[in-house]
């Protein structure tokens, strides 16, 4: 187990300039990948090269720089599409997962009685849109924050317009039973939205195999820059989906724009009004290329071994409560959320102490899942989320810190 983790980590660590940093004289231990990942040199170079060598707008410039920027930009969309087994024409570039889910919420044109079923454990990005668009129907969760999927069918009605689920929970790390959810949904003709924010960089994804109707994801949790993400959907939906923003770059015909009419381009371009996040998108492409060069199966191998190593150790520490600790590694990614029973210390102060005393960067608080925390009676939690570059030595530093604080 340790060999698997450390050999994979050793192969990629040098790609991350951030990891050479020290905090208060201690080596940085970055365990906050569920918030955002560090960026490998390939991504940094891609972004910097764009600024240094190809600064230009895309799909507009007739000069060499414009053409080079356009090619890099278009290639990034193609690269991301390849990662999820999709056609580039089905990939809409958005600001991130949140915008992608809002895109669907808007596109489905839900009425106030139209029901959207989703686990109560979801991130606000997959909660609040259903409160604004349609009627939220949360799937109950248990005390560990895990959805009671067995109740899913009983929640589906004639008014159910969508099932929306996070592929991987940003709190428990649990992998949702997508194939079973899709089977149930398809039997009733209900579309399925998959929030892949936490899975895009951890699991091999193929939209055809998954069988979902929508997939939303962000670049910044997958080694890319912030400010760009994707909404994947089938061509049929994109063809009829109403526009939620309009402007330059998405018009096919504007001869009669002064009298109120215009013809939009085909998807995905009709949804991408205005100058896009060019550098971020090119960086996203570089990030995906970097992950694919490692291999998503290799990343998953590291993840499985890391999951076992992390949870085996955390379970043994007295004074902490670990969420979903009984899940098998195959049912989760290497993401551990726990509560440290330390008198007079909030979970935020636990995380601050881990950083100040041990150089360990983790998240703390509610992780945009207030409903989960409320229903699981949690006063906030600490979340450690390793990735492919993390070693067992780094996990040992985390464990040392947690033990010391908990004791």
């Amino acid at each position, binding site marked *: 187990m340790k060999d698997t983790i450390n050999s994979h980590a050793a192969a990629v660590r040098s790609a991350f300039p951030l990891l050479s940093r020290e905090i208060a004289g201690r080596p940085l231990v970055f365990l906050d990948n569920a918030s955002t990942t560090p960026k490998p040199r390939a991504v940094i170079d891609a972004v910097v090269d764009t600024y240094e060598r190809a600064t230009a707008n895309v*799909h*507009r410039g007739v000069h*060499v720089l414009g*053409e*080079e920027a*356009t*090619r890099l930009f*278009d*290639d990034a969309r*193609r690269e991301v*599409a*390849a990662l999820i*087994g*999709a*056609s*580039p*024409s089905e990939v809409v570039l958005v600001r991130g997962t949140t915008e992608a889910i809002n895109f669907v919420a808007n596109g489905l044109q839900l009425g106030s009685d139209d029901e959207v079923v989703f686990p109560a454990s979801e991130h606000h990005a997959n909660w609040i849109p259903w409160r604004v668009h349609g009627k939220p129907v949360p799937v109950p969760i248990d005390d560990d924050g895990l959805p009671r999927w067995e109740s899913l069918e009983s929640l589906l009605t004639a008014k159910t317009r969508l099932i929306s689920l996070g592929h991987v929970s940003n709190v428990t790390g649990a992998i949702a039973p997508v194939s079973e959810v899709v089977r149930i949904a398809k039997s009733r003709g209900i579309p399925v939205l998959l929030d892949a924010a936490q899975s895009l960089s951890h699991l091999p994804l193929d939209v055809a195999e998954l069988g979902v109707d929508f997939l939303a994801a962000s670049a910044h949790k997958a080694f890319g820059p912030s400010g760009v993400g994707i909404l994947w959907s089938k*061509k049929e939906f994109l*063809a009829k989906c109403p526009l939620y923003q309009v402007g*330059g*770059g*998405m*018009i*096919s*015909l*504007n*001869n009669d724009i002064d009298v109120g009419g215009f*013809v939009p*381009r*085909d*998807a*995905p*371009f009709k949804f991408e009004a205005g100058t896009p996040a060019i550098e971020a998108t090119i960086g996203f492409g570089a990030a995906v290329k970097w992950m*694919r060069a490692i291999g998503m199966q290799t990343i998953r191998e590291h993840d499985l071994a890391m999951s076992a190593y992390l949870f085996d150790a955390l379970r043994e520490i007295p004074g902490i409560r670990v969420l979903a600790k009984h899940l098998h590694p195959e049912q989760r990614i290497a993401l551990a959320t726990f509560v440290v029973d330390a008198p007079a210390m909030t979970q935020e102060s636990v995380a601050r102490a881990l950083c100040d005393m041990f150089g360990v960067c983790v998240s703390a608080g509610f992780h945009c899942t207030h409903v989960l925390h409320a229903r699981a009676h949690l006063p906030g939690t600490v979340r450690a989320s390793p990735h492919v570059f993390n070693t067992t030595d780094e996990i040992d530093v985390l464990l040392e810190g947690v033990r010391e604080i908990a004791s």
Partner: protein
Amino acid sequence: MTGREQPSLSLSRDTEHEARALRSIASALERIPFYAKRQTHAPALVEPSYRPGSLEALLASLPLLTADSIRASLPKVWFPVDRNPKEELASGAISIVETGLSDARIRLLWDKAWWLAQEQRAWHASEVAELALAEATRSAGSPGGIRDAVLWVPERGTGSCGAGDPSYEQRVERTRLHLNPRQDPTFWTEAVMRRMLEELALHETVALLADPFYLDVLARFADSLGQALRVQGFIGLTRSLTTSAHRANLARVFDPKRTVQVYSAREAGVLFIEGSDGLLHHAPFTTHVELLPLRVATPGASNVACVVVTTLDRAVQPLVRYVLGDLVQVATAPSRFTTVPPITTVEGKLDDCIVRPDGAIVTPAAVDRALEAARAAPTGYQVIQTDLASVTIEVMGGSCTEVTSALAPLLDGLTVSARSATAIAIESTGKYRTCRRMTPRLPLDAFVSTQT
């Protein structure tokens, strides 16, 4: 042929070819300011009457002309000294177009009437095309214009902001239908492709001239609908390399015996056209072509030469010894129409060839033949040389492992890796490449002997 009687070609050998070439060169050097500025002068050996060997001697004395050397020139320097560029450009008789990939793009003076005339004439160098055109003329009852369609980089409409998709009527230019108003076929919708298929029939298309990469997308869609391509006569494949996968996909929706491979260049017109013997023969009247032998090994391809073209009887922007940058395999068979030998294949751009550490170059067509021979040809692919020692292959609709194995012998000495892709990248000019070298460009004389 399709069991019908094979016609004898109406074109006969151009006995004046070399004499016309001599006169054209002399005229260009004397009357075109561009050549005067470059101080390219016709030596004294240019004489009014042709003598055997004098064309070769003259060409050998003249420098090669490259895209780099004409890129920075303005239109006016390409008009004969006694003509008025401003008036002719304003009248629309001559327009300015662009060609070439973004890193080798040039602007050309474009005489559409000249282009169409030479294109129509060139079809008569192909038995398949000539038969189709003769039948179309017969059924129409008069020679008239042949109804053809083109499918390549959009010339009418671009799908870009504000331009809009032109209607069928707006895309018809006399008898020619421009099928495609959109860039990158990756983003063609089903509605766009259905419209194209319907318009092919509606237009009563006798000939379809198509970039094989674009046609491949349409052919696969037609196949998915169980439809054939409704082209009455023939399909001319032009503009880029026709891969084995393209041929296989097209064969499912169109009789392969009615396809004709065409090698043309926007700078010079139709250069070679496929005959019934399977060879591409030099189309007469418009150009003289030199085939400069390569000085490096070309594994997977033999008798490879670089195409250098001199335009004939063209008043505006005549080109003298212009390096197109394409490689071809030269055939040993006798020439049909001129003294230029036929070719067996167009191998692709020299700048796209993969350069091995041992100095040998692998042409795009050699790559495709290796894939076909190993039965490993994917739906689409792009071989990218990222540095002097490494090659990455994007594989669409095929096995990365099989593709890597199939190409390993050809790419000896290079580290080869393959990745799956759901689409192949398009160039900003709307063209596709099956091979792409991202290492710095090397000078022509690193590969080519500059004399025939």
